[in-house]
């Protein structure tokens, strides 16, 4: 069951690659939140109940509900256009992400480690690189934020892999989640939308050296 959920997670990455509208990204982030909720529930069986409840609450309330709703609100408030405006065509994005997944699978096969379920490694590493790819290849700042949130989801998957032995690391991951999301989304909500009317990265190139 865990494997099914994690494979769904990878499929969601491929879906983002060909998505045309920003709202689809938001929905995928919400779906990923629910998938992580399921994986957490199935995976973390050896840890204390209150800790498990905390982690589950974080995935369902924060990742699956609060952040997507907030992103939707931001899009509306700042009147961000619906297009995702990638620099590259969707087809190439799809191929690049497939290559990323294949490479991580190959890398994972070279590991000799009995402690780790390899699928966690594959999912988290491919999510990390996919997120970085989204950040590099999309034009709007808000898609950068979403790429970052996706990276965080990937990191969360990896922290679940060691969660039974070191639950504190999962808690640290949650701290990172909340902290970074609040900081980034806070700046985004309060300032960038107000100051820069059309929120493309092109507008953020006034700090330069010559």
């Amino acid at each position: 069951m865990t494997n099914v959920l994690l494979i769904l997670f990878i499929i969601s990455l491929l879906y983002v690659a060909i998505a045309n509208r920003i709202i689809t990204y938001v929905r995928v982030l919400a779906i990923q939140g629910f998938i992580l909720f399921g994986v957490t529930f199935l995976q973390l069986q050896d840890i204390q109940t209150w800790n498990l409840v905390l982690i589950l609450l974080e995935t369902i309330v924060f990742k699956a509900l609060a952040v997507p709703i907030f992103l939707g609100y931001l899009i509306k408030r700042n009147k961000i256009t619906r297009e995702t405006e990638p620099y590259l065509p969707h087809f190439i994005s799809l191929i690049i992400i497939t290559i990323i997944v294949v490479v991580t699978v190959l890398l994972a096969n070279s590991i000799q480690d009995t402690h780790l379920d390899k699928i966690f490694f594959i999912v988290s590493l491919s999510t990390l690189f996919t997120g970085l790819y989204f950040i590099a290849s999309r034009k709007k700042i808000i898609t950068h934020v979403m790429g970052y949130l996706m990276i965080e989801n990937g990191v969360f998957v990896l922290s679940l892999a060691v969660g039974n032995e070191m639950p504190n690391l999962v808690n640290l991951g949650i701290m990172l989640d909340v902290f970074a999301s609040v900081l980034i989304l806070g700046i985004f909500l309060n300032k960038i939308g107000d100051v820069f009317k059309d929120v493309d990265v092109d507008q953020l190139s006034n700090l330069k050296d010559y």
Partner: protein
Amino acid sequence: MMTGIYLICAFLIAGLLFVNRNTIINNTLVILFGLLQTGFTIYAGFEYKNSVLVYFTFDSLGLLLLFTLSIITIPALLHSYLYIKRHDETPQSIALYFSAIVLLITSITAAYLANHIAVIWIFTEMTTLSASVLIYHHRNKLALEGTWKYVFICAISITFVFIGILFLSLSLQNAGSNDLSFANLMAYKDQLNPFWLRLAFLFIFTGFTAKLGLVPMYTAGIDAKDKAPAPAGALLASVLMNLGFVGIFRFYAIIAHTSLFHWANLIIFIAAFLSIFVATVYMTKVTNIKRMLAYSGIEHMGIVMLGIAAGGIGYYAAILHIILHAFIKSSLFFQFNQLYRTFQSKSINHVGNYFKYNPTGAIVLLFGFISATAMPPSGLFVSEFLIFRSLFEGSYIILLVVVLLLLTIVIWAFGKNILKILFLPVQGLNEINIPKINPWESLSQYILLFTAIWLGLNPPSVFVHLIQDAVKILPN
């Protein structure tokens, strides 16, 4: 016990500064924090080698950098006070500024002393938070852009460090332990799984380069030092960079005892060389004085990491270099603020003939330039010379020659700009608007620069002993 009191008091002061709107209370609290920081530093000297509150150890490296931090803290608070007084600030923005600077100094202190990689990580996160408030102090479009870039890149870097910690925990699990303190990692160093350790090093190193200011993540720091007010920029350009060094150094000390030692050195060599290269390229182009100083910092961090990777005497020199660099670079940033008040511009093209308007400050700039480019009698001359010697002894001759060439270009570019600022008159400057600057405001810069010279040329035996003890954990 005292450490707990220090942390609680410092956070309390930061909180009170945040809610307070009264100028007198604000100043009292800032002075209190200065006393608290100094007191804690002296106390730390007596607790040498002891561990407190499980997660903090007063080891040699931590103590050295803590003393550096506390010495820079006093002028930083003083110049912040002068800076705030001269600008038309609302009580709210004053409160936010001082609260953030107190939080920044406290979290850097805690991160220096932490003996657990996750604790360093937490306090590094807190420095990002407080630094972003300082960068956004002026609340204009450019400051927002700088803040946004800093926050975003630091968030990614901090995530990288976290991934590294996760890989490290996987590596440690193979050894049958799950305590991520540096002492425990060192105890299990022979049983760590090399595959996971390799990934862990890559991610942790990349993550901390955002604070240290190396390729690949150095970009955020440049904008940050440019947009933050100069007294805060001085902290970002000196002690915060040292924090990145602490994070990498403590983990590197463990890697150095495993089979990955040479591989890790190679990675560090590449990053360090590219940093020096990038810094050189930008130094020849840049016209913004603050950014020029920031790029000079990138170059110095590259030299420091070359020393670490070359080994031998390079370890000693690297730590000496990073301490002296902190003093010199912070004094240049403090002086920059007066320069800006004189000319009302950051651009080299609008600044000139500084000797005529403020001779005291001009001498600071000249001295700072000589120090930062490691010409004798600068203390950096000693450390840089030792680093080059370690490169020579490690027979990295080609690398050494290329680095020396690049450094010559840096000196040329730096010198061209600084001499223009000092001597060449600027066209169309309205001399009536130029304010008279009190020469005493340069006193702290003189003290910092002379400290750097003194520590470099005639280091007290305690200082030498501490550095030697700090590098003892590395293989010879």
